[in-house]
């Protein structure tokens, strides 16, 4: 692609965010474009389709005000690149990676294609370092490990921002002092949400290890297609060239997918489900898969995308396809939220696929896996019985079943529920789990090995300490 800048001005058609430019030559697929309006205003775009003499250009900032005459289209001869540098930590950028905080320009150590390249599976290293978030529902039952991609599935109005902030503040890898560098991408979110995070990072004194890429709700939608990629390009640089452990927060991926649908519709593509393009899965994967560890490198990228499920519907294409790509999901529940429980994590619907690698002796504690399995089995039975009791009445349940109801309540009120600044160690989390499991008769603990019951069950523990 080593060709210089070429300028053309024959625009055949403008539709939605697309320009069809005629008379072009030597234009490359995915090349970056600068559009200069008759007014002198400059916008950026990207080549989506190229035929002989014709190029279809997607304009990030939209086509409002563009005219077919007097507009200059410059093909820049390179894909969309952003400068990357360690100095970008502590700075704020727009969705295309240009500084907007009034600070000095970035002295680039290198320019990188925002699309990145797929990580070679043979060069990846499997994630296995336990991250203690201090949140019981996560550490105890949906453990996060370094290099994982674990999204938060939320609904409008639910406290996903608080939870993400709490995780960003509390996340530590035990035995290591080093804090995570945070790359934050705001994708079409409201100004309030942005300010929440900005203030949060300022208050916690973390601002100098945070880089923010911001595209707000009232800014051009097409830029949203670039924002997460720009953020991840920096994250990859910090992790794999600068040996840092990076936590990437992408919020809100629903806005991203909607921008993608908009461009797909403008191109008159055959839609898949609910009007989203058939390639939504591959496209989301090209973002989410940019996480992990690689062999022989110290750094890592841990991704925490946030998305709001339209109508709280987990089968909607956006959460659905996300769940198929990410390594689990943390699902927030409106029902728990309405009960006043924070964090309102629906543990039954949540999952961490990499949990088994991060827990156990030497990492957390030997009883962790069994305790977690038992909590799941018992809580799901409790929830099931709760709905049964609502129909037939508690008195129609057996004595043991009534113990399960008691357990389910204690689980929500004591184990799930915790303060926004409450940072529980994994031992505290597991001991708390044992306390509530002790509500059940011992014969019901069929998922836990006998030796762990003898060692950790409060009943036996008391005896040994007395």
């Amino acid at each position: 692609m080593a060709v210089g800048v070429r300028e053309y001005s024959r625009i055949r058609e403008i539709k939605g965010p697309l320009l069809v430019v005629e008379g072009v030559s030597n234009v490359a697929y995915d090349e970056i474009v600068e559009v200069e309006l008759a007014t002198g205003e400059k916008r950026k775009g990207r080549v989506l389709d190229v035929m002989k003499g014709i190029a279809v250009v997607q304009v990030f900032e939209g086509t409002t005000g563009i005219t077919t005459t007097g507009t200059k289209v410059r093909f820049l001869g390179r894909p969309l690149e952003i400068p990357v540098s360690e100095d970008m930590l502590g700075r704020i950028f727009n969705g295309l990676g240009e500084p907007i905080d009034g600070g000095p320009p970035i002295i680039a150590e290198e320019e990188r294609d925002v699309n990145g390249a797929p990580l070679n599976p043979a060069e990846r290293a499997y994630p296995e370092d336990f991250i203690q978030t201090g949140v019981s529902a996560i550490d105890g039952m949906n453990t996060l490990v370094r290099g994982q991609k674990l999204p938060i599935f939320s609904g409008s109005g639910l406290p996903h921002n608080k939870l993400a902030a709490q995780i960003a503040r509390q996340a530590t890898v035990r035995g290591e002092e080093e804090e995570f560098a945070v790359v934050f991408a705001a994708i079409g979110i409201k100004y309030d949400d942005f300010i929440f995070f900005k203030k949060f990072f300022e208050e916690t004194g973390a601002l100098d290890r945070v880089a923010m890429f911001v595209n707000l709700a009232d800014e051009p939608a097409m830029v949203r297609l670039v924002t997460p990629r720009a953020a991840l390009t920096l994250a990859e640089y910090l992790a794999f060239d600068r040996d840092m452990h990076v936590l990437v927060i992408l919020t809100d991926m629903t806005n991203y997918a909607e921008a993608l649908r908009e461009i797909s519709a403008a191109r008159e593509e055959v839609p898949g489900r609910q009007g989203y393009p058939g390639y939504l899965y591959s496209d989301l994967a090209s973002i989410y898969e940019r996480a992990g560890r690689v062999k022989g490198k110290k750094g890592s990228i841990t991704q925490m995308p946030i998305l709001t499920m339209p109508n709280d519907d987990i089968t909607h294409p956006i959460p659905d396809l996300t769940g198929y790509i990410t390594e689990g999901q943390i699902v927030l529940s409106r029902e728990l939220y309405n009960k006043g429980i924070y964090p309102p994590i629906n543990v039954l619907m949540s999952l961490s696929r990499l949990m088994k690698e991060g827990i156990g002796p030497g990492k957390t504690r030997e009883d962790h896996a069994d305790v977690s399995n038992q909590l799941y089995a018992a809580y799901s039975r409790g929830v099931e019985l709760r709905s049964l009791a609502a129909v037939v009445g508690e008195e129609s349940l057996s004595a043991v079943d009534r113990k399960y109801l008691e357990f389910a309540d204690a689980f929500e009120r004591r184990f799930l529920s915790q303060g926004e600044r409450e940072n529980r160690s994994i031992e505290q989390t597991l001991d708390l789990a044992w306390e509530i499991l002790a509500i059940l008769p011992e014969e019901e603990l069929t998922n836990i090995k006998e030796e762990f019951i003898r060692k950790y069950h409060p009943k036996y523990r008391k005896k040994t300490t007395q």
Partner: protein
Amino acid sequence: MPVKGRIARISGPLVVAEGMEGAQMFEMVRVGEDKLIGEITRIRGDRAFIQVYESTTGLKPGEPVEGTGAPLSVWLGPGIIGTIYDGVQRPLPLIAEIIAKEAPNRKMFIERGVQVDPIPRDKKWHFKPAVNGGGVHIGDKVEPGDVLGTVPETSLIEHKVMVPPGVRGRLKWIAQEGDYTIEDPIAVVEADGKEIEVKMAHRWPVRIPRPYKKKLEPTLPLITGVRIIDTFFPMAKGGTGAVPGGFGTGKTVTLHSLAQWSDARVVVYIGCGERGNEMTEVLERFPTYKDPWTGKPLMERTILIANTSNMPVAAREASIYVGVTLAEYYRDMGYDVLLVADSTSRWAEALREIAGRLEEMPAEEGYPSYLASRLAEFYERAGRVEALGSPDRHGSVTIVGAVSPPGGDFTEPVTSHTKRFIRVFWALDTKLAYSRHYPAINWILSYSAYVDLVTEWWHKNVDPRWRKYRDEAMEILTRENELQDIVRLVGTESLDERDKLVLETARLLKDGFLKQNAFDPIDAFATPQKQFKLLRMFIDFYQRALELVQHGITVAQIRQAIGRLYVEMVKAKFTIPNDQLEKIDELRERVLKVLDELEARSG
């Protein structure tokens, strides 16, 4: 003379080239200055429509397109086992090595246009000609499939060097035992006065099934060590199956279990549009895990094909065919091969994406109308066969495909069409997964058409009462499912005692038999004997308890009488290892004795 044309249009993974007169349908081509790999999927006039297997970023109209004169093919020969390939048979570690030479800090990324050999050209293999005892002799007439000799490919796989397809004639010369590369001739066959050199490797087009003598009935079970599969919904060697399930229901864990524990001799694992870390997991763990059947590292029987979700979409479509062709090749040597494809939905979506770019008329949910026939063709490449050539060999390809239905909806096109072409259906259930009941295979929705066929094997090798116990357990589970509807209305306390016993036994079966921890060293793999003994323990308990209930003893009394033995029964799966099965019998006898005593006390 291969065709040469120029790029006229680029749209995502689709490239249109002009000046392509004489190009063949499905011909493999090299696109652009970087010689990206592509395949022709439609021809109109002098224009060829090409799906490109690498990223098309930066391609320009006017760049050259060269034909190769052959359809997309794979190299077949020693050196395949233990390798991880991309969707078009390029070894991923070699790609990294080549990139490392140019840009060491970009080594972990896959860049475009890297050309590497699928199997090593310089590696020497120890070839042993099959000239003694029933083997071939100089002057013999030889045909495709005849075994000329063997090469120890890994400690587990003896690679059979066969006369390649299309070669027949008199054997004129065969190499002495010794070390050869795949470039060295190891035999010469004379046909029609011409001499043909035979080497250890040859090419085969991926979209054409490899030939065999005849198909056989799949009567041998593929033992997986997963209780719900082997006992309730068995797979047969040479059979076909699908694992559909929403995200988080454990498709991948189930497929990993099959790849890890099943008694197949060769496993082809295709990661088609799935997570990179899942391939890494197999790659890191399998060399250290031992094959439960031979004690050798699992990687010595495994071939990995990885087109992860962020790798180019067109290669996803090809990866399935590359995988099944490799599987057929080892089948032809006489091995039982298991092919797992995770996930066929991503393959179908790749079809849809390409079809959309070709502006083909969509059928259901945007999928092309040929989705069903493509699925049928793929699953039909499974089977237990008598291989071509001599000596006589039986081999099989078992295909298990994961299906990822959007929103977990089994009525969507990929799931519903797949159901028509498979015989085993392991339906994964979101509700079971939510309560961490794994494997989350729903025992009401799942089925296996091989139960009757494999019964004889179980009766001969495990116990002649296997089928009786299995069917009885299935009946209890089905009855429990019906009872749950009633329980939801009236609760459990007002049920008949016999029905309460069904609920109690079903719970035992669910917790003590169906639920299996794939990560527990003892529980992960249950031998057929262990499965039978566990099942027998639960069903004998039920039978005996039923007699007591009919004599007026309540389920609560029974439960109280057996006390902690209940927990022991449930935990037997992970407390009693495969080599101490007599302990299950002891436990069963203790339980039955308690019931005897209870009966005696109640007089």
